């Protein structure tokens, strides 16, 4: 079987852990259809990213450095990945199902006329044929699909695969020269959501708030609880739409998909779209004063209470526990 290529995600040189679960997905795939796993890093001044990936159990890292990749643009990335896939004859190409992978992978699909399965949550085999699992309908259905053509393209749901561990061996890094044309597109600017907290998709604990939090000022309460766990903060669509929380915090079907060990849902009613983004969390705690709220159906520990009373009490109890 032809080999497998993973396109590495980084934010202008800062390696993103989304790639680690994609590497595990690639390994799973290689176990089913054969082939070795290589990684491709595109960027400028990103040797360190290549070195990091090289220490995570790949056969080789291909490094394409150019000014044209200094800022990520789908229009430059997709043809470069297409060139690598064609020249080296990869049988499958994978990338994280983050806003990075979701942006350029379909473009790659169009360029290569190759089938793409989005947001893959599993691989299996039926006889000799590969079967691919992916969520549809806000995670209320798991589809099994078959891909026809080559190379096979996948974006990988981060929460569905464990991060690849570090390896003892270090893979060689090979420089590749790639053509790229930004085709009528320029990078204008980036407004980073500033935070000292862990990434939503990587945090062990997530504290999220919904409309029940009532005002942006009250997010202080959310932060106070989050501080006790070094947790990431999430939000529902309603709170982001209202401008109380940045877009980057939205948990749900079309926002971030999270699966932390502990998820606090504060004043969240539990719309289908929100549940889609968090119902794979290990332990879910819901605090809401409406006992009919659908969030309680997925919660392991539901507390029907006014969050403005319950959360401060919870914070006090947890502090007591910590100092004990």
């Amino acid at each position, binding site marked *: 079987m032809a080999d497998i290529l993973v396109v590495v995600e980084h*934010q202008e040189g800062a390696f993103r852990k989304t790639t680690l679960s994609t590497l595990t997905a690639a390994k799973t795939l290689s176990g089913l259809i054969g082939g070795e796993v290589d990684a491709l890093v595109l960027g400028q001044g990103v040797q360190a990213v290549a070195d990091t990936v090289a220490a995570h159990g790949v056969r080789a890292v291909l490094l394409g450095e150019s000014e044209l990749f200094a800022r990520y*643009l*789908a*229009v430059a990335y*997709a043809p470069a990945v297409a060139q690598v896939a064609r020249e080296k004859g990869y049988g499958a190409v994978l990338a994280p199902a983050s*806003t990075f992978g*979701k942006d350029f992978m*379909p*473009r790659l*699909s*169009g360029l290569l006329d190759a*089938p*793409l*399965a*989005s947001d893959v949550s599993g691989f299996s085999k039926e006889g000799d044929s590969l079967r691919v699992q992916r*969520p549809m*309908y*806000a995670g209320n*259905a*798991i*589809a*099994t*699909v*078959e*891909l*026809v053509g080559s190379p096979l393209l996948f974006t990988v749901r981060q929460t569905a695969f464990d991060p690849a561990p570090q390896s003892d061996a270090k893979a060689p890094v090979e420089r590749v020269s790639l053509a790229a044309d930004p085709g*009528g*597109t*320029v*990078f204008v*600017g980036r*407004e*980073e*959501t500033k935070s000292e907290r862990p990434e939503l998709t990587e945090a062990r604990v997530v504290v999220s708030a919904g409309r029940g939090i009532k005002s942006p000022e009250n997010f202080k309460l959310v932060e106070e609880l989050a501080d006790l766990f070094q947790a990431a903060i999430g939000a529902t669509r309603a709170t*982001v*739409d209202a401008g109380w929380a940045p*877009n*980057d915090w939205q948990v749900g*079907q*079309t926002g*971030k998909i999270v699966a932390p060990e*502990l998820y606090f849902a504060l004043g969240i009613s539990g*719309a*289908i*779209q929100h549940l889609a983004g968090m*119902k794979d969390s290990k332990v879910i705690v819901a605090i809401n004063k409406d006992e009919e709220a659908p969030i*309680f*159906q*997925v*919660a*392991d*520990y*539901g*507390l*029907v*209470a006014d969050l403005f009373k319950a959360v401060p*009490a*919870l914070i006090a*109890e947890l502090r007591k*526990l910590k100092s004990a």
Partner: protein
Amino acid sequence: MLVAIKPVPNPDERVKIRKDGTGVVLDNIKMVINPFCEIAVEEALRIREKRGGEAVILTIGPKEGEQQIRTALAMGADRAILVETTEELDSLGVARLMAKVVEQEKPDFVIMGKQAVDDDNNQVGQILAAILSLPQATFGSKIEFSEDGKRANVTREVDGGLETIGVTLPAVITTDLRLNEPRYASLPGIMKAKKKEMKVVPADSLGVDTAPRVRLLSLAPPKERAGGKKVADVAELVDKLKNEAKIL
């Protein structure tokens, strides 16, 4: 402006999977315009109000899609094209059919939802841009045109924050939630919509290979959570987290 819309089952209702796993039960479920596509329609109308032009709706699929097209026309779009087919299509097939329409219509830009909330693929806009060799700006939350109308700056909702890119037109733009809040169709709008032009084009007349390359084999329900337990107060919650879930 070409605005692509997709009819989807009402996203606020939980879909049921057919017993044989071949699809979902659509009886008694209301079909609506995919929420992201509705945002695209609204944006096209706002752009038309500011800059003039024509908002043309495009749908690909079975005849029943006429209903959602009428809704978009009632919101204020000018005319519509339905590329009619009853075949199961994948994103590549849809994008290829769309590309034919774009070649005929030559719009200044194509705008559509970033993702349909039924299959959750998030693919068609980007594939279309690739097929037509056009720039793409996905997940748009703000669109601004240059004075001469030859370029647009699109702010995109990305992991980590917001990013702005500039694209030369024509381009393909996909919409995210914060772009706008779609209007409701007014009664006069609904009356007017009945008289607006809707061209039906049989998909097979476009000479495009639409055999699916991603084939849906079956659907299964996800693992259900054993949730639903309640605690009486904060003390019990902390006790359970510590001694039962062992997470503190």
